[in-house]
Every structure is written in structure tokens, then in C-alpha cells.
């Protein structure tokens, strides 16, 4: 009996000892996350790579090996190339808006003023709302018949002026009143870019505010003593200190926007005349709706190299921000 108890005690002590080891404990703690990622991301990703080299069709999850045919076939299609171009336009365009917007808003929101909490709440709200629901709201705003945007422009007597301006800058010649935000290619590109920016902005603002809060007060004091104010302070003090964290926000925004499916799918379904397709929606149209699974997988993988570079950048700058 005593021997058994001693053996049991020894085993328990063994476990306790093992759990005290950083190597074992670290593996145990991180294992669920790793297993989850492997199952949910890794396996489908490897499968997608495999499918992209096959002629698999809807539901089969396997097919004959076709080498790079799917990639070549996709590249020869001008709709694919347009989708690739649009992915970059939406991503870069929206991030430019986000960068400026987040810098301005964060600068404003770190100050003390009455009603600050409600302004912060309103700024963060788009991030909290489900993407699909908020995009449907935007669909109503840009509706072909009941557009709130057009109603507002008409009430302000700006609709005709805007149509003239769009023609004058060669952005959308031949547009009519009321403007069809989702029916003209350039207007639709603009509308989608705005929705993406609106969606990502709160996240960037929060990151920017956190970045500003992390700047030691000693640095602020020192810059004041040295006479750095206004633009000089912004250029020589604020921007260099915030840059790493700002880049993290932008890189996250790039990933969120480039890989987004819902906004384009809900707003335009890729129209008008496939002028607003992006890689995720085009991959879906080919791979899921049309059943060409292999080709759809190949289309979706075109984004992979870009996202790898961005992800490496994110990790690099996140680490740098942490160190500084």
C-alpha cells in the first residue's frame, strides 16, 4: 500500500516537475492554438495549393494533375487581371484614407474635451458592427432608386455639380443624375474604397491612440524644452515614434482589405461588367459558383505572395514597436 502510494506520489511529482519546466509548459500552452491553426488554416491552405494544380471540379476535392495550367488560364483572362488590379486599388486606396484619417482622428481623440467618450464610441462603432450588416447598410445608401447619398446631394443642390465635376476630371464621363454609385465602374470603385476605409478606420485609430499613449512623457517634455512645436514636433518627434505601430495598423489593414470578400460581393457582385471584381470574389465565382474548383483555388493563391510579404512586414514592425 505504502509502496503504491509512494509510486503514485513519485508520478505526481514527475508531472509537477515536468510542468515546472518552461519547455514542457510552453509546448502545452501553445499546443491548442497551434493545433487549431493547423486544422483551420493549415490543412485548407495546403489543400488549396494541391487543388490549384488539378482540374478538380465542385465537390470532388481531387482531380487530375494539370501543372500550372490553372494559373496560366487565369492570367490570360482579362477579368482576372482586372480583379488583381482592383485588389490593389481597393487596398492601397483605402489604406491611404485610413492612414490620414487615423492620424487626424487619433490626434484629436487623445485630447480632453466634453463628449469625448461618445465620439470615441462612434469612431469605434464600425469596427464592432458585423461587416455584412454594415455593408448592407452601405448598399442602401448607394441604392439605385432610394440612395440616401443621392437624396442628400439633391437636398444640398450638389448633384448636378458633382456630375459635372466627375466629367470634367474624366473620372466618369456620361454619368447622369441621380448618380448610380454602383452602376458606373469608377464610381463603384470609389464607393467600395470608401466602405473599406470606413470599416478599417476604427481599428487604425485605436492602434494610433495606443501608439501615442506609449510615447514617454519625458520625450514630450524634452521636445518642448528644445522648442519643437507644431509641424516640427510632428515631423521630428511624433511620426518617428509612431511609425512602427502605425505601420502595423496599415499592414493589418492591407491584409483585411486584400482578403475581403463581403464588401464587393454585397455591394456590386463584381459589377458593373465585372469592373469591380477582386480576387476573392472572382475565385468564388469560378471555383464555387461555376464549379471549377482547381482554377478557383489557383486564383485565390495569387494573393499569397503579397500577403506573405505583408505578414512578414507586420511581424517585423510589431517586434520593432515592442522593442522601442
Amino acid at each position, binding site marked *: 500500500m505504502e509502496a503504491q502510494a509512494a509510486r503514485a506520489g513519485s508520478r505526481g511529482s514527475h508531472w509537477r516537475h515536468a510542468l515546472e519546466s518552461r519547455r514542457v509548459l510552453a509546448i502545452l500552452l501553445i499546443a491548442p492554438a497551434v493545433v487549431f491553426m493547423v486544422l483551420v488554416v493549415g490543412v485548407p491552405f495546403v489543400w488549396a495549393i494541391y487543388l490549384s494544380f488539378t482540374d478538380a471540379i465542385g465537390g470532388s476535392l481531387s482531380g487530375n494533375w494539370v501543372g500550372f495550367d490553372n494559373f496560366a488560364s487565369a492570367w490570360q483572362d482579362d477579368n482576372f487581371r482586372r480583379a488583381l488590379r482592383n485588389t490593389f486599388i481597393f487596398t492601397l486606396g483605402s489604406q491611404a484614407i485610413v492612414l490620414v484619417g487615423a492620424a487626424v482622428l487619433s490626434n484629436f481623440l487623445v485630447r480632453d474635451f466634453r463628449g469625448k467618450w461618445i465620439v470615441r464610441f462612434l469612431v469605434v462603432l464600425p469596427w464592432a458592427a458585423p461587416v455584412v450588416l454594415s455593408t448592407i447598410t452601405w448598399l442602401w445608401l448607394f441604392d439605385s432608386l432610394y440612395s440616401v447619398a443621392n437624396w442628400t446631394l439633391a437636398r444640398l443642390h450638389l448633384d448636378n455639380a458633382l456630375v459635372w465635376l466627375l466629367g470634367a476630371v474624366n473620372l466618369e464621363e456620361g454619368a447622369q443624375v441621380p448618380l448610380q454609385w454602383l452602376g458606373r465602374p469608377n464610381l463603384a470603385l470609389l464607393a467600395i474604397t470608401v466602405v473599406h476605409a470606413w470599416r478599417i478606420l476604427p481599428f487604425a485609430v485605436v492602434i494610433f491612440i495606443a501608439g501615442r499613449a506609449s510615447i514617454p512623457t519625458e520625450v514630450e517634455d524634452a521636445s518642448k524644452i528644445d522648442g519643437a512645436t507644431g509641424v516640427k514636433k510632428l515631423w521630428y518627434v511624433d511620426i518617428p515614434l509612431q511609425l512602427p505601430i502605425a505601420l502595423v495598423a496599415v499592414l493589418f489593414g492591407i491584409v483585411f482589405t486584400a482578403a475581403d470578400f463581403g464588401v464587393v460581393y454585397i455591394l456590386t457582385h463584381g459589377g458593373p461588367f465585372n469592373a469591380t471584381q477582386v480576387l476573392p470574389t472572382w475565385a468564388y465565382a469560378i471555383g*464555387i459558383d461555376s464549379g471549377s474548383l482547381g482554377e478557383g483555388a489557383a486564383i485565390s493563391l495569387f494573393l499569397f505572395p503579397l500577403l506573405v510579404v505583408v505578414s512578414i512586414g507586420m511581424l517585423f514592425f510589431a517586434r520593432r514597436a515592442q522593442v522601442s
Partner: protein
Amino acid sequence: MADVVDELVRPSSTLTRGDLLRRGAAGAFAVSMFGGLTDKALGFYGPLRFAKKQLAGDLSIMTWAHFVPAYDQWLDNTYVKQWGEANDVQVKVDHINNALLYSRGAAEVAAQSGHDLFWFISPPSTFQKQAIPVTDLVQEVGKKLGPMTGVARKSTYNPKTKQFYGFPETYAPDPVQYRKSFLEQTGVSLNTWEDLRKGAPKLKAIGHPVGLGMSNEIDSNMLLTSLLYCYGGFIQNEENRIVIGQGSNRRGAIEALRVMRDIYQNGMSDEVFAWTAASNNQAFLAGRLSVALNAISIARSAENQGNVALSDDTWLASIPRGPAMRLGNEHVMGVYLIWKFAKNKEAAQKYVVDQMINYREHFLRSGYYNFPPWTGSIKGGFKTIRQLCAQDPHKPKGKYTILTTIAEKYTTNPGHPGNTTPVMDEIYNTFLIPQMFAQVAQGKATPAEAISAFTTKAQSIYRKWRNQGLV
């Protein structure tokens, strides 16, 4: 064919095709007898006639949320319940938005799990390798009800595999719906596309433009392919080869593109490029449009909303005639697939047969939306269907009668004169037809350039599916 026999006469099953039809007839009889009664009558059934041969288990069905909501209520709460009780099968029907049917179907196939019976709004030819062929069921129903309509046959039959991969459940004609008063006021006729080309500016001038979609949505696909037929610009031939870039097809397609460009530039607005499938309904019901092409959901919505002035002024007509013919696509082609992984294939097979053998109640409950693929399923065929349509009480009296003519003479399948193949499926799902028309309408391409670009894409799609052995 062997696959079908395997499915129908498995050693473990006592169900033969004969049994299937006999019991289908019995089930249909039961439903036809009691289907029209109120829900209170649901509990009444006599002794089961095939007590030792009953089906068993569960049957799960995925279908769309019908444009006529009352039909779904009747289907779920009356028809399905009665059919289930008569066959000792627990039936569960799920409804989803029609735009989600394909992606949901793809998800079920990928998971090899889901519903036993899956209803698609258009012929799901890309899924045919995942479904059991239903050739035997089609043949047996044909023996009972007579020939299947051409539109249903060409939508569900694959001449390459010589199999019916899907069971046609319904099709909806696609009439023109127009405001009688506006057309009278402007003196515009809808007899030919040329009439509409000339009349469209007059309609736009009175503030009620024409509404023919050129957007990334299904209605635009259907309408614009129909316009191509009318001008003899066929995408594929009877052997399902892409021919739109050749000879008379190319000339016809170019002319069709010019007509639509003219109608847009003089008689429509930009809104037609931004539409969803519901947009032309909304614009017509809002009183804006003078002409639209859609299933009868527009007219029915006006009636259901109690908008008497609009309803009484909404008339139906056949698609305008072109230089080549008067012909339009179906608006909806409801097709059931029985997945290979379905757990209760026998019940699924019996359900579709039962439903078809007596379709009259489905036709009536859908407000003439659901036309039967076998006209013999309504005793008297098109003659009876015409009489039923004529009896609709809404004004103008008899306005739905034209539906029968459209269904009988002027309705075909996407891909006419060939079959609805995976090639047509992909052309539709990637919206290449609205793309071609819209680019010409907005001046981004000439008709000849647009046809050439379309032909290149269509031939590439054709080669892909030919390599799969499906065309």
C-alpha cells in the same frame, strides 16, 4: 443507366420502379384529395394502403424562399406534412435565399453531407457528377404523364452522358410587364424589339424609362440571352459548341448589342447597371419603370400590396419579336438533385415523383408561378392551364392568360438551341453576357470587340468542361 438501376433496385430495398410509381400515384392522390383542405384536416388519414411497404426515416429538402410566400406556407404546413404522414417519412424543408443555393450546394457536396434533396433555381449542371442520375424516374413519369416539355428536357439532360442528372420540378415563364397607361399615352408598341427601340425615348421622356437589366445578376443573364435568341445570335449550337463568333450568330449578336445600346442610351438610365435581382421589381413597384422583363412576381407583388391602381395598370406580354424569332429564356428552372451521399434516396425519389404526378395544386398555390415540366401533370395540359390562368380574379381580367402562350411557345432553356451545360452555367455565374452588353452600352467597347472578347472567354470555358467529359 446502370447507376440509376442500382439506386432504384438495390437488394436491400423492396421498392421497385413500378412500386414507386404506384405509390407515387397513391401519394399524389392523397395530397390532391386533402391538399386543398385547411390545416385542420391534417390529422385525417385512413388506414395506410402500403402498410408493409412504407418508406421510413427522415427526408431533408433544401429549397428556395419562393417569390410567392404563401406557396411556401402551404408547402411546409400542408403538402409536406400530408406527404410525410402518408409515407411514414419525417420531412424537413429548409428554405434559403435563391442567391445562396449554389454556394450552399457546393458546401454540402464538399462536406459530402447535407440534405437528401436539393432544389436549384437554374439547372445545376456543374454538380451532375455529385448527383444520382434520375433517367429512370424521368422515363417512368413520362410514361404516366406524357412527354416532358422541351425547356425542361434540355435543362436537365446531358447528351454526352445520356443521362438526366436532375429532376425538373418547375419552370417560370418570363413575360414582359408593362404599364398600359404609359404605353397608350406614348403610342409605344412592344410587338418587336425594333418597336421598343423606337418607343423607349418616348417612355423616358414622360419620366418612366424602360428597365432592362445589364447587371451582375441572374435576371440580366436571362433577359440578355433572350435578346440574343431574338436576333439569331446563339451562344452555342445544338451540339453545344460555342458558335456566337461565327457567321449569322455573330451578325445577330452584334445587332442585338446595338439594339440594347440604343434602348439604354435613349430610353433607360444608369440604374440598370447597378441592379440586384430584386431591383427591377422595386423600381416597377415604385411606379418608376414603364417596362420590365420578369416573372410574374412584379404583378403579384402589386396585387399583394393592395396597390390597385398600379396592379390594374400592369399588363403582361410576350417577349418582343426580333428579326430571327420571338423566344425567351425561362425565368426560373427549378431542378431537384438527389445527392449521391443522400441518406434517404428512396424517399427523395418518391417525393419528386409524387409531386409531379399531380402538380395542379402547386401551380395554383404558386399563383401560376410554377409551371409543370410535364404539362400532363395538370389534366388537360396547356388547355386547362390556359383556362386556370384566365380565371384569375385580378384586373385586367384575363391578363395572366398570356403566360400559357409564353410557356408553350416562347420559352426555352439557357443555351438554346443546345442544352444547359456547365459551360452555360459558368458563363452565367461569371456574368459574361451582362458584361458584354454593358460594355457596349456604356461605350467601353464596340459590339464587334465585345463579341470577340466574349467568344474567346466562352471557348476557353468550353474547352475546360469538355476536358471534364461533361460537354
